[in-house]
């Protein structure tokens, strides 16, 4: 497929250069090239395909074959802006064509109406910069449907009474339920809650060139060997390539966006595999590099005209970072669940999506899911009950007895936007290319921790109702590490409190667009990728309309 791609010269001024090929970048590449534009996608990671994926836990998980490498791209971490940040891993994201969508869990919840208007509904929350979105659920609904049908999401429409309205059912039925899902479903019903089949971006029915899920059991963290996981790699990127107008250029690490004297973006500057520097010229730049790398790139692009970083007249690029809050409870049952078979999550419930702050004493809400996402090795380190001997015959016996009888309930919830929570440039530490490293500053809003612990108690109740033989867990704690990277270049109508407008155009640079987790104004209840992809489809429509009206290059 790659051989059919056009090869643009860096001196060719293409219509769009897209930075990043993940959940958002892949879809924008597909949509913009389908709409007739010439597109170059610059991806910092390699172009791996199904043939490169395996179940090798060392290579994939420990050596970061698919993800950002802490030695090449080290990070620093601190809780508050007055601390000196320590060298520590702050985040994991996909670093290959397809980005994080290659290895994600594939939980594909839509956001609900409340997520777009929570500030109006609950009023100001002390210590948080909560804001309404400039768009509503109704604006995004057609695009959620588009994601489900074009990318491939399995699920059961109408199964959750809390679901927001939808214009079309899912394109295919839910995946086969797992024992963890049945246990969860029965116990939740006993409690009067409303469990339902998890909407997953994994195929339950084959599509051309893609197999239905074969339940291999190496899902979260791994690339799918049969194309069943609806990553950008398996879907949008291939459709973009088929247009003949889109070049995917891997191993291209963008570190600056160039601007001209008129303050317009002229292209993206990147290192190739041999660390030679190139400028890919383009009429417009679309950055989809994720909620950490997108603000970093804007900050790295500071120049005389934009001394605080590109598109940062508000001073909030990198700020209002949200990770999503949560906790995990693990339970053991009498009979084998064999939950290592299959994908991770088969049942979800959203009874607590919209909690009343007056009643619970905090702002936010969440969902619970039933899952088993351990591999054999990670189970030995994280799946055994506290107090299990760490070596010897009792350790061995625990491995033998527990691996097949264990499941988890994950609590997912809101993170409130807090101005100090941010990704910024570390003043001292550099990456392997000599560029300033990412510095994380993060301290959960007190409401996020309260919510996490409240959800944690519900998960315990559920295991109690399910008759678990043992249950234990880890309540919500202050986070120092993230995989959901949200809100750092948020969307809004006011250039003082947001970075992009509702068209994903930066307020400051008319031909610079941002679309990824950084665009989110609120964090939803824990599963952002579906919304990132819906935003990408919508952004492509908006950008196309602007371009066709001549409003980008003017």
């Amino acid at each position, binding site marked *: 497929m790659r051989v059919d791609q056009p090869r643009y010269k860096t001196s060719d001024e293409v219509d769009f250069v897209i930075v990043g090929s993940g959940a958002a970048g892949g879809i924008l590449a597909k949509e913009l090239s389908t709409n007739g534009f010439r597109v170059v996608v610059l991806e910092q990671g390699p172009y791996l395909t199904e043939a490169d994926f395996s179940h090798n836990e*060392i290579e994939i*998980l420990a050596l970061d074959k698919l993800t950002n490498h802490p*030695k090449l791209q080290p990070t620093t971490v601190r809780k508050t802006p007055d601390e000196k940040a320590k060298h520590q891993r702050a985040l994991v994201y996909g670093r290959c064509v397809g980005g994080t969508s290659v290895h994600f869990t594939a939980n594909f919840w839509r956001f609900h109406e409340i997520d777009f208007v929570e500030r109006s509904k609950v009023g100001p929350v002390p210590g948080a910069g909560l804001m309404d979105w400039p768009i509503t659920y109704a604006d995004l609904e057609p695009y959620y449907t588009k994601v489900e049908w074009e990318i491939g999401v399995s699920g059961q429409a109408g199964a959750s009474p809390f679901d927001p309205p939808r214009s079309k059912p899912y394109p295919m039925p839910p995946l086969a339920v797992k024992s963890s899902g049945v246990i969860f479903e029965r116990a939740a019903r006993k409690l009067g809650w409303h469990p339902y089949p998890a909407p997953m971006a994994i195929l339950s029915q084959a599509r051309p060139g*893609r197999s239905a899920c*074969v339940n291999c059991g190496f899902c979260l963290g791994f690339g799918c*060997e049969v194309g069943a996981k609806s990553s950008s790699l398996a879907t949008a990127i291939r459709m973009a390539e088929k247009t003949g107008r889109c070049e995917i250029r891997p191993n291209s690490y963008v570190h600056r966006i160039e601007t001209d004297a008129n303050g317009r973006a002229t292209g993206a500057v990147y290192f190739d595999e041999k660390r030679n520097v190139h400028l890919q010229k383009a009429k417009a730049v679309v950055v989809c590099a994720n909620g950490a790398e997108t603000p970093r790139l804007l900050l790295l692009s500071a120049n005389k005209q934009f001394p605080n970083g590109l598109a940062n007249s508000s001073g909030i690029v990198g700020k209002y970072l949200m990770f999503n809050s949560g906790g995990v409870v693990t339970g053991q049952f009498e009979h084998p669940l*064999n939950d290592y078979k299959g994908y991770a999550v088969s049942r979800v419930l959203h009874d607590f999506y919209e909690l009343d702050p007056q009643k619970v004493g905090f702002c936010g809400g969440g969902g619970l899911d039933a899952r088993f996402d351990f591999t054999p090795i990670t189970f030995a380190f994280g799946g055994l009950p506290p107090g299990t001997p760490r070596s010897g015959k009792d350790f061995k016996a625990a491995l033998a007895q527990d691996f097949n009888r264990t499941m988890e309930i994950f*609590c997912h919830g809101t993170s409130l936007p807090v101005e100090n929570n941010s990704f910024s440039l570390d003043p001292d530490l550099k990456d392997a290319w000599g560029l300033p490293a990412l510095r994380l500053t993060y301290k959960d809003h007190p409401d996020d921790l309260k919510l996490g612990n409240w959800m944690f108690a519900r998960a315990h109740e559920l295991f109690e109702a399910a008759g678990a033989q043992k249950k234990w867990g880890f309540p919500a704690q202050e986070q120092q590490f993230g995989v959901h990277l949200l809100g750092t270049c948020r969307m809004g109508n006011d250039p003082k409190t947001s970075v992009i407008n509702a068209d994903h155009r930066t307020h400051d640079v008319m031909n610079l667009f941002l679309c990824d987790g950084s665009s989110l104004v609120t964090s939803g209840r824990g599963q952002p990728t579906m919304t990132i992809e819906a935003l990408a489809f919508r952004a492509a429509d908006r950008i196309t309309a602007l371009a066709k009206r001549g409003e980008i290059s003017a």
Partner: protein
Amino acid sequence: MVCISQMSLTENLLHPRVGKSEITRQNTMSELNRRNFLLRAGTGFSAAWVTANWPALLFAATHAHNAAKAATPPKFAFFTPEEGAEVEAITARIIPTDDTPGAREAGVVYFIDHGLVTFGVDDQKTYREGLPELRARVSEMFSGASKFSGLTAEQQDAVLHSFDENAPAGRRAFRARPGAQNFFETIRLHTIQGFLIDPEFGGNRDGVGWKLIGREREHRFQSPFGYYDKDYPGWQSAAKEADKT
């Protein structure tokens, strides 16, 4: 964060050794070539054919591959034979042999040895420094003895616990050097990796680790998976039943 607690777990626990994985790569080469072959073979047919047959192809190829590599003669690349015997004895206390195979039968020491010259080169120092410390500790605790592998099981456990920072209070904590990886933690990590990794990737010989934990060695599975989903009546029926009660 919640989404990948295992990733952060992996991050904290599987991560200390980072280096280029040359041999892991070589190991997987046969694997990759196999898949490339399958993929290329597939391109001559319709996409639908590949889709329909892909899982079966993977399934068949995996078995062929496993059968072919069973006869690899064990030989150390990093350890001396004496060091190998000591390391093997340690792994055998972490996952002992009882009525089922343990680390010894899984060939864990060969996985570690191989790892130390490939993806785990950064850990060489921990072994280079840890093994003499171990020898010293053995002599210190049991006069006249010098080899860990020569001690009784109880004596071996006593020595290992003296290295285990996370062992119950009262035991002496031990670090090889300031800043160095804890020897016991490192060897425990490697033993578990070598015991439970997919047998295609150089450990878990004959799949004994997966047999122990009850993981079937297949590339695909079909529902029902376990005890609790085998009589599940389907979503609609389950929902109706729940409405009745």
